[in-house]
């Protein structure tokens, strides 16, 4: 079965035998975008978070067929080293990552949160950012989320 969608601004058509194949594996192994991570495969850790039409989605538990016609964004399409997304800039400024494995998922979840709540309170962050980081970088992430909100708001004001 053929499924077409836009990923990081590019049109793609993929061929899968099973339309229920998790989007995660299509992204990682067919489209070779390895920034989206496999952590649990059961929607329990958030390492695989990406955006489908702007919504944060745990792609390990999201059938590729639902992406038909959608706009998909992965960490590779969030920003670039030359032109980072405010979330990525804040993550760099706060030096958030340790092992780094969970980080793309958290950054994608944060970027989606900021679209909905441009100035999240600590409470908003606690309720919405529910991925798992084993290295325990939550403390810096919280600072980075507040900073990213500021960066994003400043840039829209300009």
């Amino acid at each position: 079965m053929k499924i077409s969608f836009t990923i990081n601004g590019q049109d793609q058509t993929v061929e899968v035998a099973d339309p229920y194949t998790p989007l995660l594996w299509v992204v990682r192994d067919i489209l070779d975008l390895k920034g989206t991570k496999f952590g649990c495969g059961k929607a329990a850790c958030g390492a695989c978070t990406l955006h489908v039409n702007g919504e944060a989605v745990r792609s390990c538990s999201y059938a590729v067929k639902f992406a038909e016609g959608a706009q998909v964004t992965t960490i590779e399409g969030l920003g670039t080293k030359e032109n980072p997304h405010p979330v990525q800039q804040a993550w760099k400024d706060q030096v958030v990552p340790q092992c780094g494995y969970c980080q793309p998922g958290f950054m994608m979840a944060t970027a989606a949160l900021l679209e909905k709540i441009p100035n999240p309170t600590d409470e908003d962050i606690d309720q919405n950012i529910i991925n798992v980081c084993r290295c325990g970088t939550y403390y810096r992430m919280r600072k980075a989320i507040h900073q990213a909100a500021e960066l994003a708001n400043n840039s829209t004001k300009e």
Partner: protein
Amino acid sequence: MAGKKKISRRKFLVRGGLGTVGVMAVGTVLFRNPLRRTIMDFAETAPPMYSGSGTEPQLWFELTKDNKVLFHSPKVEMGQGSFTSFAQMIADEMHLRMDQVEVIAAETATGVVDGLSTGGSLSVAGLWQPLRELAATMRMMLIKEAASQSGQEVSSLTAEEGYVTAGNQSWSYAEIASKVEKWEVPHTPELKELKSYKHIGKPVPRVDLDAKVFGDPIFGLDAQKEGMVHAAVIRPSVVGAKYKSYTSTGVESMPGFVQVVEGENWVAVLADSYPEALMAETKLEVEWDIPKKWSEEDLQDMLQVGKGKRMITQKEGSALDDDEEGVVSLSFSSPMGAHAQIEPNGALAYFDDKGLTVVLSTQVPGITRTQLSDAMDMKEEQINVVPTFLGGGFGRRLDTSHAIIAAQLAKAAGKPVKYQFSRKEEFQHDTFRPPTYHTVKGKLNAEGYLDSLEHHYASGDVSANSAIALANTATKILGTDIGAMRGGNVMYNGIPNHRAVQWHTTLPFATSWWRSLGLLANTFAIESFVDEMALKAKKNPVEFRTQVLGDEGMHGRLKKVIERAAEVGAYSDTFTNGRAMGFAASTDTNVPSAHVVEVSIEEGQIVVHKVTCVLDCGVAVNPDQVRAQCEGSIIMGMSASLFERMTLRDGELFPTIYGPYRMALMKHAPKEIVVDLVQGADIPLPVGEPPLGPIAAAIGNAIRRLTGERLTDIPLQENLDQLLA
């Protein structure tokens, strides 16, 4: 210290023109601590050994055409930030900018890999002296070469930012190296003074920051190879079960199916993609031989103070007589814990004309290769282990037996094979932090200070029987599990009578190193008890501790850290706004640490608002990353202290997924963490584990003040739930 020894000139092996411009390589370097100290000291503080193990002269440094230095690190990067510290050390002694140094993990075929492991928080501490000496020596080599190439005096040349300059002439390091036929190796020059370093001691950003913020494919599970197939491996869910046979219920007709492979205690399905392998796997019915279904009760039966192998790990003054008046005794426990690192284990394996290559996240590339060599009946020279960045280590990557499965699959398939664990497999085939049981006893003297303190601790294997134990003779000599011992001894030397006794039992499944090993549970037991005695004596818990600490050496450093923590954290026995403070300290691998926590209970839930952590880790090569390690240790330690627990249910290890395996999330992380660093030594000391020590005890001590109840069992939230029920 090992650090005083200079690298011998004979060990320098330098070659030129091997594809890159001037390859500088160093042969086998073995740093071994003079065994002057007592064997117990050695066990607690021994630096790891390095061994070159490739067929080629081992490569530490490469100078590349674009005038950068590529450092092939014998230590892997698992988040601890050591690659950044290495780059700082090299940049400072080679006179380079940070962006001129790149660090990668050494492969076993060409690089120098660690003879033991990356672990014990020793990466930066262990390479502190040799790495700076190598870098300084190379700077001198380049200057000497530039002098002879240009016919100038060495003394008239300076080296800065990758260029050697004489008056208005200058040459890049790469340019100089490209003209070298044969290097002359000078004596190691004097290293610079700490205060004159430009990079060391500064909070420079991590060198792997961009890769990790923009999603570069740097992890073990990101590896791939043309033509590879994917494996889903079925392993026993029941502890101790043995594979018998499988029946296919139509696996052959599943999309993408390649083949079924049977192994020693597993059966695998290979398919074109990983989801196809997972789907096909459901079409196998596997029969297991189950000799016994282990239960929690069985474990508790085996593991107890008073059972298993007894070993006195510390002894001073006389033993306590239980019947004596005034003797207080309390029991504590901690459960089995999972590593739960977010990147599952796995490996990519393939054969080519050079032999076998295995790419994976490993803390032990050298041991991984030895084990592959044994299992595959191949020479070590035919095997290349390529370590990647690790999506979390914490001790889980010390066991890499799955590398063997991947290699066997690649052999059977005649194709590259990528094997990744399912999360259930990860939880059930972890090398767990063993459960522990503790009895702590003590007695006050007439002034109300501790006169006697005894810690009895029962633990499953930590370092005994682990992969690195094989290489670690200390374990065998001692008959003690040195991992279980971490934090188990009494650190208050002013208590006239103190002792520690280990009761060691091997459990029916693998237990091993988990960040800080026995430290968290041992400190929980001892420091909870000390706190209880301070209350009994009606003394301030800070003064109650410092009173029984000497001023010299390790004890003096601990005393300073305790005093400093009380000051920075403004420790007080009274509480405000429903919050109480808790105090605890620990000592691990010569690094004292003390925490002050501010805790409240909201709707029955333990909330940690603020943690103040004081750590004396000697020289902080990168103070920002030392802080990051403290923050991470505190949060990971909180997670284990408050929530985590693995259990046995009907013979199976459970839970098998995040969520049911309850862990700290964003909402549990303290809103405020204050890290204060004390420099009580002039070398870097371990950082990644010691600050994890005090957290459980500190929280328990705060809860005691809030509720009057003493929590004695980790996970503390569960313990509190029972008390409130």
